[in-house]
């Protein structure tokens, strides 16, 4: 099986359907990179299932030549839970957006993550409703002017990474639509993780919220605007002459200006650790925002904890070991019965 799968290529994961996102949409890059890494996993194509809700990003399964289900608004994590809980051997991926996942589907996202079902959740965050043509979303910045907020949004946004950390996610990462190398590496890490792997993908909507992430996408600015998280490495970013580190004291992050050759650890810069027992450190990282801080990308937190589907299957196995396989006749005759002659 693995041999056959190993021969698969990016092309094998493309369908015959025309991809119908707007020209310049960040989704194209994400699709191409997902299709590119799939063959590396050594999993037969028929064992992948892509499940989405409603929205631009949720058209994704139609373009993946695997099993797939385009479900209803916000509920993809619940459908995925049913697939994975009943067939743990399948590789189940949820594709959702900021509106689908955090507005109408916030409840399901929370509970899928908290149960630690072994699925990958890719949340494309473009901070706007695209398919319904441009209303503000739950991740839109306060003050954003849209068709439904002509005087500016008065909602405070939710941050997807903080949301996932708050739900006790065992794997939380962030990456950028057009940063192919980083995106692929993040997908690999998500796939390797046993349990819910939550990945926020910063994605551009060229029609309704163009350039929302431009600083992080542009090759010239991104090395200063982002902080690439690497386990065991100090939190250092910036090009020559702009080198900075992040110090975290009592959960409060601050910027440390660094000389080009300065030892960051000696300067009190924090060393990234994905496996802190407490989510507080990852939460502090998640609070780093433009313009005062670089935006962290990479794996915020990753730790092991038994997955829901594994434990459910184990309960079935143990029940059969303890009581024997279910016997319908014995069930119907259990407890008090009587005979009428």
């Amino acid at each position, binding site marked *: 099986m693995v041999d056959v799968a190993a021969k698969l290529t990016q092309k094998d994961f493309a*369908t015959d*359907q025309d991809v119908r996102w707007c020209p310049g949409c960040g989704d194209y890059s994400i699709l191409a990179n997902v299709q590119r890494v799939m063959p590396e996993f050594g999993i*037969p*194509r*028929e*064992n*992948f*299932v*892509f*499940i989405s809700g409603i929205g631009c990003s949720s058209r994704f*399964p*139609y373009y*993946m*030549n*695997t*099993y*797939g*289900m*385009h*479900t*209803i608004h916000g*509920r993809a994590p*619940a*459908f*995925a*839970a*049913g*697939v994975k*809980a*009943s*067939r743990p*051997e*399948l590789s189940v991926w949820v594709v959702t957006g900021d509106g689908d996942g955090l507005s109408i589907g916030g*409840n*399901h996202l*929370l*509970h899928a993550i908290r149960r630690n079902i072994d699925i990958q959740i890719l949340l494309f965050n473009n901070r706007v409703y695209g398919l319904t043509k441009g209303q503000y979303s739950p991740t839109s910045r306060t003050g954003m002017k849209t068709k439904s907020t002509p005087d500016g949004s008065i909602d405070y946004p939710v941050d997807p990474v903080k949301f996932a950390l708050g739900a006790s996610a065992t794997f939380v990462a962030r990456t950028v639509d057009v940063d192919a190398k980083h995106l692929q590496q993040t997908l690999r890490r998500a796939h390797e993780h046993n349990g819910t792997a939550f990945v926020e993908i910063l994605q551009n909507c060229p029609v309704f919220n163009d350039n929302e992430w431009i600083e992080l996408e542009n090759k010239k600015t991104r090395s200063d605007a982002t902080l690439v998280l690497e386990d065991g490495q100090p939190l250092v970013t910036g090009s020559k002459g702009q080198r900075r580190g992040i110090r975290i004291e009592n959960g409060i992050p601050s910027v440390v200006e660094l000389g080009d050759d300065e030892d960051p650890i000696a300067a009190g810069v924090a060393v990234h650790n994905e496996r802190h027992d407490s989510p507080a450190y990852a939460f502090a990282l998640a609070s780093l925002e433009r313009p005062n801080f670089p935006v962290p990308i990479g794996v915020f937190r990753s730790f092991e904890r038994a997955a829901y589907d594994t434990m*459910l299957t184990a*309960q*079935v196995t*143990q*029940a*059969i070991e*303890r*009581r*024997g*396989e*279910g016997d*319908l*006749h014995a*069930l*119907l*005759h259990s*407890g*008090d*019965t*009587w*005979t*009428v*002659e």
Partner: protein
Amino acid sequence: MPEKTTEELESVAIRFTGDSGDGMQLTGTKFTESTALAGNDLSTLPDYPAEIRAPAGTLAGVSGFQIHFSSKEISTPSDHPDVLVAFNPAALRANIDDLRPGGMVIVNTDAFNDKALARAGYDEDPLPALRDRVKLVEIPLTRLNREALNDLNLSYRDADRSKNFFALGIMFWLYHRSMDPTLRWLESRFKGDILEANVRVLKAGFAFAETTEMFPVSYVIPSAKIQPGIYRNITGNTALAWGIAAAGTLNDCPIFLGAYPITPASDILHELARYRNFGVKTFQAEDEIAAISAAIGASFAGMLGVTTTSGPGFVLKQEALGLAVMTELPLVVVDVQRGGPSTGMPTKIEQGDLLLALYGRNSDCPVAILAPSSPGDCFYTMIEAFALAVKYMTPVVVLSDGYLANSAEPWLIPDVASLPRNPVVHHTETAGFQPYNRNPETLARPWAVPGTKGLEHRIGGLAKDEKTGNVSYDPHNNERMIQLRAEKIARIANDIPPVEVNGEDQGGLLIVGWGGTHGAIFAAVKEARESGINVSSIHLRHLNPFPSNLFEVLSRFDQILVPELNQGQLSRLLRAEFLLPAQPMIKQQGQPFQVSEILERIRTMLREEK
């Protein structure tokens, strides 16, 4: 010991009533178990408040359990109890009007103090006036119960908790029931002082009844002459849960239940959660929507997906149910209907969701609908629901109700070998595979599941091409697909037995019922016919599609009466479908039909005709 006599009765109905914390449901259930073992036919009706502990001593907090048992076949819990056991003044006040004239009332006199009387809304002690009207048996239950336990180291509070078992002991003696099933249950459930206390008061109650002059007569109800076989007692919810487990075995395909707790459907989840060794996976979801979504996901993955709920939850599931119709996946949705609308009366009885099941989704979105007609029938209905869901690749809705869910009846245990086996075979043929290529006979599409090489495909809620299932906005294709899905449901009629008429197959009046009202309708028609009235009845277990001979049967009668626990939903359907003058008989009081109500309506209709 005083001289005691024994009297033989054909049937008796007893209602146990008290505060919702007095253990009336348990008392009734234990009495029912012994009655079942005594070989009587029986029917029960639990009636309890939605609040777990409503204010003590108030009318709102009264909980009741009625059991009707007989040496003849019976089909209802009886309109009027012959015996009322009242643990407090509120219980007496809430139930006394239902008592058969001249019936027996057993009260706990210790509970009839000024404070309790006031709380129940009595200006004066009702017992003196009652002595002339009924056979009043006044027992100081609380005191006798405490005395039976006075050498155990129990607080009054703890001791008083067992007084329902003292009363149960009395009733066991009075009706010649065996204490053994209850004693066995106590031993399996409790230990130490609590076990000792309950066993002791049960026996003390029995001995008290045997020796006291209050009960000069005890009653024998001979066992009923019913179909030979091995019987058990069963409630609708248990039968329904077992039907689901059985469907997994019979279809050789694991069950996946997605459910969210809701009264009165939660017991199905509780029951199935115990059968992991049947390969049953239960998933308590975060809400009703997630529950059905997970079940659909499991169906997509090749399991038998099922979700169980009640009215308000069924409303929430409609969008996902529409997706299951669109993706043409097998799915069973159980709605244990309850009093509504909105939150309504969660523990009460209604049949208000028929039109919701039929029309609750956007656009034209048909599903198959079945309704069990008795607690035991819930078992067979679930087996049939899964068989149809798989054969036709469609969601099937099962409309149970709060009456069926909690009522008990003796159930002839079926021979497992006689149950229909339909092992699921998922589609594996790659040649010519199209996700929506239909079986020409059933119009079902192939059930191709993840993990099957060469059959990778995508499904979803967008309009889809008639063969490939790819997204299609072609106008004619869309209309064809809507009609194909409707035609597929219509063809289920080929798998449904014709409806059978109870009584003459033509005549002046036909009673048409569906679901949980079968017992009351059947009893009323039987009584009417025995008194010389020419009336027939049919009972629908299949609400969509209808049995294929339904129009023909209906058109052979001059008048059609449709008793329903709603505002006339089935009668409206029959009129719309067949242009026949079906008359509704409506009741929406959270209670089942009384036999006398239907009988009276039959008499009125036939009188008016003359």
